[in-house]
C-alpha cells in the first residue's frame, strides 16, 4: 500500500522500537564484577513526557539555558521536556540552505533526506533505552548543512529539563554535506530540580566526503536527580574530519555509549572528552574509536576528575576491523581523584584485526601530587589555590582542544565552581602521592 502520509515509515520504525522496548527488561550494566551501573533507584513509572508552550525570544528561555548559551549562534533550537520551545535560524544560514528544525518537522518536510539517514548506524535493538528513545522521541533536532556550504557561527541545540517527573526522549540527526564545514554544539542542561527525571537520548551525525566539523556535547544536568542514558554516534566519510568533544559536568546517573567511526578511506577524527563528578553522582562512559576503512586516523584523549563520593568509570575501546589497513590511532585516558571517598576507573582496550596499523593506548588513575602542591606553596600560593591551578592545568590540554573560546570559558567557569564547592574535601585530602598509576 503506497503511503498516504509521508511519515508512515517512521510510524513503522517506532512500532518496531516499541516492541523491542517491551521485550527488554530494565538493564543493569556490570563489568568485570566490580563496576555496576544500576537503575534500581529510578522510579521509571513515575516519569512522563511533559509538554510546554513555545517561547517568542531567547530572553524567555529557562534560566539554566540562558546561563549556558554564549555569543550569537547561527541557529538555536531548544527542547524543554518533550516540546521544542524555540527555533531560530539566521537568515544567512537559511539562504545557504542550512536546515535546523525539530526532527518531527523534518520527517514531514524533508522526509526523503531524513529517511535516508535516520538510524543508519543506530539500532532499536541495542537495548532497552535505545529502543525507548526510538519509540518515544518527540521534538528532536534535525541539522542539515548542504554540500560546499561553510557555516561560520555555531549551530546550537539544547535539551533542557527543569521539572521533576520529566521523561525526555531525545533524538538528534545531523547530516553534513560534501565538503561542508560547520560547528555544532549540543547542550543537555538541567535546573537543580527536587526529584527524579530521565533523559534518554540518541545523537547521530553523518558526514559526506570531505566535510569538516567541530562537534561539542556539553552536559550539565545540575544538582537534581536527573538520569541520562544515551547513545551518541559520529560517522565520518571519506577524507572528512570531525573533532568531537563530549563534556560531562553533572547528572545523578549518566550511562552513555559514545562511538566515533572513521567509516571510509582517509577519514580522520579527534575525540576529546572531559568529565567532573561530585557529590553522589555516578558516571559510566563507554567509548569506541572504530576504524572501518584503510588510511583512517584517530586521536582520543579523555580526562576526568572526581570529588565527593562520586563514581566515574571510563572505558575506551579502539577497534580496527579487518581491511582497515594503514590506520593510525591513539587513545589515552586519565583520571584524577580529588576526594578519599570517590571511586574511579579508567580502562583503555584494543581490538585490532589487521596488520599494518598503529594503535596505542594508555591510562592512568592518580591523585593530586603532593610534590607539585608543595612546590607551588613554596611560591606563596595557598594549598587550595595550588589544587585549583593543578586541576585546571590538568584539564587545560583537553579544554584547548575544543577550539571554541565561548565554550572553553563556560567549562573553566563550571570547573572552578565545582572545585570551590569541594574546597573542604580537597583540603583534607592530603594525597598519598601520585599512587595507583597504571600504564597499558
Amino acid at each position, binding site marked *: 500500500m503506497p503511503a498516504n502520509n509521508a511519515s508512515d515509515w517512521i510510524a513503522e520504525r517506532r512500532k518496531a522500537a516499541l516492541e523491542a522496548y517491551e521485550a527488554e527488561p530494565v538493564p543493569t550494566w556490570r563489568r568485570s564484577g566490580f563496576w555496576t551501573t544500576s537503575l534500581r533507584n529510578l522510579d521509571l513509572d513515575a516519569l512522563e513526557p511533559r509538554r510546554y508552550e513555545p517561547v517568542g525570544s531567547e530572553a524567555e528561555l529557562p534560566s539554566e539555558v540562558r546561563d549556558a548559551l554564549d555569543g550569537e549562534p547561527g541557529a538555536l533550537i531548544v527542547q524543554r521536556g518533550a516540546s521544542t520551545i524555540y527555533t531560530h535560524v539566521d537568515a544567512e544560514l537559511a539562504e545557504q540552505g542550512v536546515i535546523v528544525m525539530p526532527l518531527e518537522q523534518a520527517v514531514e518536510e524533508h522526509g526523503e533526506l531524513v529517511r535516508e539517514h535516520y538510524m543508519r548506524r543506530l539500532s532499536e535493538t541495542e537495548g532497552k533505552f535505545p529502543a525507548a528513545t526510538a519509540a518515544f522521541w518527540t521534538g528532536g533536532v534535525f541539522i542539515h548543512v548542504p554540500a560546499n556550504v561553510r557555516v561560520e557561527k555555531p549551530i546550537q541545540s539544547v535539551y533542557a529539563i527543569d521539572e521533576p517527573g520529566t521523561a525526555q526522549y531525545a533524538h538528534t540527526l545531523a547530516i553534513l554535506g560534501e565538503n561542508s564545514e560547520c560547528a555544532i554544539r549540543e547542550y543537555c542542561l538541567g535546573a537543580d530540580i527536587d526529584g527524579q527525571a530521565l533523559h534518554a537520548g540518541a545523537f547521530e551525525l553523518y558526514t559526506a566526503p570531505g566535510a569538516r566539523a567541530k562537534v561539542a556535547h556539553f552536559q550539565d544536568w545540575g544538582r537534581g536527580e536527573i538520569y541520562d542514558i544515551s547513545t551518541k554516534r559520529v560517522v565520518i566519510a571519506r577524507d572528512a574530519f570531525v573533532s568531537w568533544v563530549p563534556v560531562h559536568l553533572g547528572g545523578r546517573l549518566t550511562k552513555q555509549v559514545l562511538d566515533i567511526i572513521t567509516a571510509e578511506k582517509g577519514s580522520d577524527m579527534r575525540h576529546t572528552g572531559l568529565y567532573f563528578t561530585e557529590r553522589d553522582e555516578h558516571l559510566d562512559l563507554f567509548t569506541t574509536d572504530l576504524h572501518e576503512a584503510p588510511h583512517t586516523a584517530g586521536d582520543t584523549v579523555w580526562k576526568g576528575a572526581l570529588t565527593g563520593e562520586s563514581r566515574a568509570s571510563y572505558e575506551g575501546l579502539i577497534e580496527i576491523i579487518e581491511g582497515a589497513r594503514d590506520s593510525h590511532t591513539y587513545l589515552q585516558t586519565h583520571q584524577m581523584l580529588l576526594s578519599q571517598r570517590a571511586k574511579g576507573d579508567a580502562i583503555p582496550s584494543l581490538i585490532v584485526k589487521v596488520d599494518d596499523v598503529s594503535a596505542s593506548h594508555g591510562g592512568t588513575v592518580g591523585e593530586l*601530587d*603532593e*610534590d*607539585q602542591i*608543595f*612546590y*607551588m*606553596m*613554596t*611560591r*606563596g*600560593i*595557598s*594549598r587550595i*589555590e595550588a589544587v585549583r*591551578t*593543578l586541576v*585546571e*592545568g*590538568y*584539564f*587545560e*590540554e583537553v579544554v584547548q582542544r575544543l577550539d571554541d573560546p565561548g565554550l572553553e570559558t563556560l567549562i573553566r567557569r563550571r570547573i572552578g565552581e565545582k572545585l570551590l564547592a569541594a574546597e573542604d574535601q580537597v583540603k583534607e585530602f*592530603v594525597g598519598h602521592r601520585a599512587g595507583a598509576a597504571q600504564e597499558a
Partner: protein
Amino acid sequence: MSLEIQNLHVRIEEREILRGLNLTVRKGETHALMGPNGSGKSTLANTIMGNPVYEVTDGKIVFNGEDLTEADPDERARAGLFMAFQYPATIPGVSVANFLRMAVNAKREEPIKVKEFGKLLGENMELLRIDRAFTSRYLNEGFSGGEKKRAEILQLAMLKPEIAVLDETDSGLDIDALRIVSDGVNALRGPEMGSLIITHYTRILDYVKPEFVHIMLDGRIVREGGPELAAELEDTGYDQIREEVAAANAG
C-alpha cells in the same frame, strides 16, 4: 633580618636525618653549605620551606624573630623565604608567565598590573638571558635540566625573597648553563638578599663566591669558615674531614 636554625632535629619515616643543626643566615650574606650525599642537605632545604614529608622533632626555625617551625610553606614564602629546587615539579597546563604572575600576586595585597608585571618579567628575563618564548611554555614540562634551573632562578628574581635557599642548583648543569645560572645569582646578590647555596661540589663556588662556608656530615654542621674552607675541601675531600671529626670526637 635573619634566618636562624636552632638545634634542628628532623625525621623522615622513623629515620633521623638532621641531628641538632645550627645555622644563621643574615640578609646580605652568602653562605655555602657543603656536604656529601646523604648528609642531610636537601632535608634541611625542604624543612626550611616546611615540606610536610619531613617531621621536626626538636629545635626551631626562626625568621626575622618569628618562629616558623610549624608554618605552612606558603606562609614561609610570603614571609620572604625562597627555595630553588634541585628537582622542580612540573606544572602542566600552567605557563611560566601565568605561574610567575600567581606567585608574584600571592605576596601582594592588590594584584600586579599587567603592564608592570610585563616590565618586571622583561627585565629579569634580560638579566638571565632567557628567550621570550620560554614564558609561554608550561612550567618545567619538557624542560632540559638547564632550563629548569633557569626557571628557578627566574622565579627567584621575580619574587625577590629576603633569604633564598638554592638546593644543588649546580647539579646536572654543563659549564655554560652553570655560568648563566651563577651570573643570575650574582646579579641578584646584594644587601637585600641573603642566600644559602647548598652543594656537593665546589664548582659553583668558583662563580658565586660565598663569605661563609659550612660543612655538613651526618645531619650536623661539623666545620665552619670562610672561602678558604671550600678550597681546603677541594684538596682533601669529605673523607679527610670525616676522619678529623671522628678523631676530635674520640679525643
